[in-house]
């Protein structure tokens, strides 16, 4: 497998299990399981044992590999500078080897099959891919300043669709000229890459890049940080040379174009940084700049925020595969409890995967009614419209 030459260099010191301020466990798979095997270091050692023939690719081994949420806390916190940046590449390579060997959990297999057969994991036919945009008067992309890229979860998850509508509305209100691909949009492949299905990812990347070029797309706004990651960081290796922005980056620049918010009653909120925005791509300021422009809204940070944020547990395909489970120690449930500990009643994020994961967790945690989970764009629209 690729990157095998660094497997033995992991000391298993455990920095990767914690955020930078050490307040609590920050690796979703380890947090949920608590077995050393599910920690990043455990994965490194097990991969080496498997490569050396000391372990089989059992169902548990597969689960250990594929339950990694690719949140990048390990790469952020690892203290070995000479290989820390490659940890997720190692895990992806391990998963790729399992994919190649046909030894993957059924949920992973089903996810990949759906993306391969339907172009998206929800098995949406093309015309249903635009359900989220009904009534929004959003044109197909035809040379506008930006392409708005919605991604799978924004198009397929009911909560993701609500978010997508509000993001599109707030960008429209800010005067952003944009179009969508509509039924021609397919998966961006971020999760396929994270799950080790490199060929599928390459196919999707090349296909999407070709579509962008055919239509003359130069600048792209993504709804999801996952799509942002794929298009901005992974596509260049396949020839993609587009300017890619997460929607919060565009909105933060253009908040002054919005009608002065009439505001609403004072509102304390907390903000959950999506891993693919904060850790993978270093963007922690844009969402906060937006919040700072909302009169009456105050931000109460959680103990873990920015690059120290606890993942929602939905990355690495776990939103679809549910390998991390939904028990009380699942990352999403721990995260909503952490949000309530700030004393706020509103938990914001800016990722459809996080939104769906955290809202579901709030229900499981019996916090619905006490903790409202919503997207940043939804709050902006509410404050612009003067209602809260």
């Amino acid at each position, binding site marked *: 497998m690729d990157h095998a030459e660094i497997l033995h260099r992991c000391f298993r010191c455990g920095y990767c299990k914690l955020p930078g301020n050490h*307040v609590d466990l920050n690796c979703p798979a380890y947090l949920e399981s608590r077995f050393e095997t599910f920690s990043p270091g455990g994965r490194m050692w097990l991969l080496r044992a498997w490569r050396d023939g000391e372990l089989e690719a059992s169902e548990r081994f597969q689960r250990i590999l594929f339950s990694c949420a690719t949140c990048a806390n390990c790469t952020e916190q690892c203290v070995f500078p000479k290989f820390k940046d490659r940890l997720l590449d190692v895990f992806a390579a391990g998963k790729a080897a399992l994919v190649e060997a046909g030894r993957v959990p059924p949920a992973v297999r089903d996810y990949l099959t759906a993306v391969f057969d339907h172009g998206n994991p929800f098995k949406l036919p093309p015309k249903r891919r635009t359900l989220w945009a009904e009534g929004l008067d959003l044109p197909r992309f035809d040379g506008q300043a930006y392409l708005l890229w919605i991604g799978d979860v924004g198009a397929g998850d009911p909560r993701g669709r609500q978010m997508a509508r509000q993001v599109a509305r707030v960008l429209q209100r800010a005067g952003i000229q944009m179009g969508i691909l509509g039924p021609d949009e397919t998966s961006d492949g971020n999760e396929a890459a994270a799950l080790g299905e490199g060929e599928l990812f390459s196919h999707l990347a090349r296909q999407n890049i070709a579509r962008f070029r055919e239509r003359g797309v130069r600048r792209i706004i993504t709804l999801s940080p996952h799509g942002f990651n794929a298009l901005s960081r992974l596509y260049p290796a396949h020839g993609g040379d587009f300017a890619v922005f997460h929607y919060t980056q565009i909105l933060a620049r253009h908040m002054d174009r919005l009608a002065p918010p009439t505001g609403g009653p004072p509102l304390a909120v907390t903000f959950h940084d999506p891993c693919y925005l904060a850790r993978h791509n270093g963007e922690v300021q844009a969402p906060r700049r937006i919040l700072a422009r909302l009169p009456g809204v105050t931000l109460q940070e959680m103990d873990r925020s920015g690059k120290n944020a606890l993942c929602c547990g939905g990355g690495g395909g776990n939103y679809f595969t549910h390998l991390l489970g939904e028990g009380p120690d699942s990352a999403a449930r721990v995260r909503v409890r952490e949000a309530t500990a700030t004393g706020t009643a509103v938990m914001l994020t800016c990722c459809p995967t996080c939104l769906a994961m955290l809202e579901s967790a709030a229900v499981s945690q019996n916090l619905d009614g006490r903790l409202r989970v919503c997207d940043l764009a939804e709050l902006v629209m509410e404050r612009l419209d003067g209602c809260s």
Partner: protein
Amino acid sequence: MKDHGAMQRIVRELAAIVGDRHVSDAAEERYLYGRDMGTMPPAPPDMVVLPGTTAEVQAVVRLANRERVPLVPMGAGLVLSGLTRALAGGIVVDLKRMNRVVAVNDVSRYAVVEAGTSQGMLQAYLKKHHPTLKHSLPDAPPMATIGGNVLIHGSGHMSCAYGFHSDMLNGLEVVLPTGEVARIGSCAVSDYWFARAPLPDLAGLFLGWAGTTGIVTRLAIKLFPRYPFNDVAIFVADDPAVIPDVLGRLTAVQVAEDMTAWMTPKPAWAAGHQHVNICWGGHSREELICKRDLLRAAVRDYIQARTAGFMPLPPPLKKRFTRLPDSQLTTFADVRKGGGFEYVGAIMPVDLFAAAYRLGVRVAEARGVAYSLGARIIGANHCMMFFFAYAFNRADDADVARAQGALEETNREVIALGGIPWKAEAPAQQAILARMDPSTRELMARLRRAVDPNGIMNPGNWETER
């Protein structure tokens, strides 16, 4: 050795105690929990269990007694000397689900924590909720547990002022090998965990025993004022023979919280020198400066004779030396690009500093092993934990064997010098026992038989009757 059917039944019973999710006899857990980061050969358990409460630990211990199955208590598993390997199989009891800070008494300055609470999490908890208090942190990664470190007689960044971490222990809750829960220290009598005095001190039954006398589930440790101002100085000498005197002078001032010597062949500027890091704090800049002046005055003779002196330290370097925990120490594991190091941490009188230094250099150079040497001073020069750290490449069997040989030789030589290896590997424990006063060894054996009649607790460690 039980048959497969019996083991499966035990797994099911464990699952009934802790829940299905928290027990495993899978090959993956058996593989990983059977080894640590050091050089000791693997010894896999039959299963691993993750209890969440003292009652669950109690139930696990009772089951293990009934079935005569060994139990291996484990904190973070960062001891490096193989103490949590399952030398006779059985059940590894990973305590890290028990990681709650139970109480902090900021008047009497102690914290009660579950044994699996990590150093980093307690540090963060205190910073947030009790910002004027701190605990003594070992030079270990932040996942190291409070329980594990105290129970092995660890030391840390306040040991120069207050001794071993076991000296900072106020009390324990422990599940005895026969399943009873005992409280040790003031908590046995009072709701407060303020001290081990004035009772007969039973804590010694569980300190340094490598998990062979029970499973500690809670403990109380002393907390100390957190200074808002902190400083560090590095005193450098070339002759190791002068270091005991230097340390004696510096500790006599009694202002340092931590004093640690270090000697390393790399980087080149450090080679051949004896460095002594001195850390202290103050409630004001004036106090900080006053303490600095006292320390300088203590070693003025050396400075005036130009045989030693303080190293100039720019602020960024000071920050690196006062950062806690210091993650750079962990990176020694990558010196050989191989993810491994282990050290002999020898508890020794400070008198033996020069001999220990020469021993470390001789062993490492003769065997071609990458090394780093140093010593943490415990108390006012009362003793030191002299460490002989040897790095190895985990992927190179010959390199691992070289490091293992260096460790074995160092252990032997340390004992011959008059020191005692700390958290010793099982073979080094035997070397210590061979040198031990026979009556002491017999007392250990009698105590062990008395508290653990079925011999289930971490067998293979401190085997006095081998």
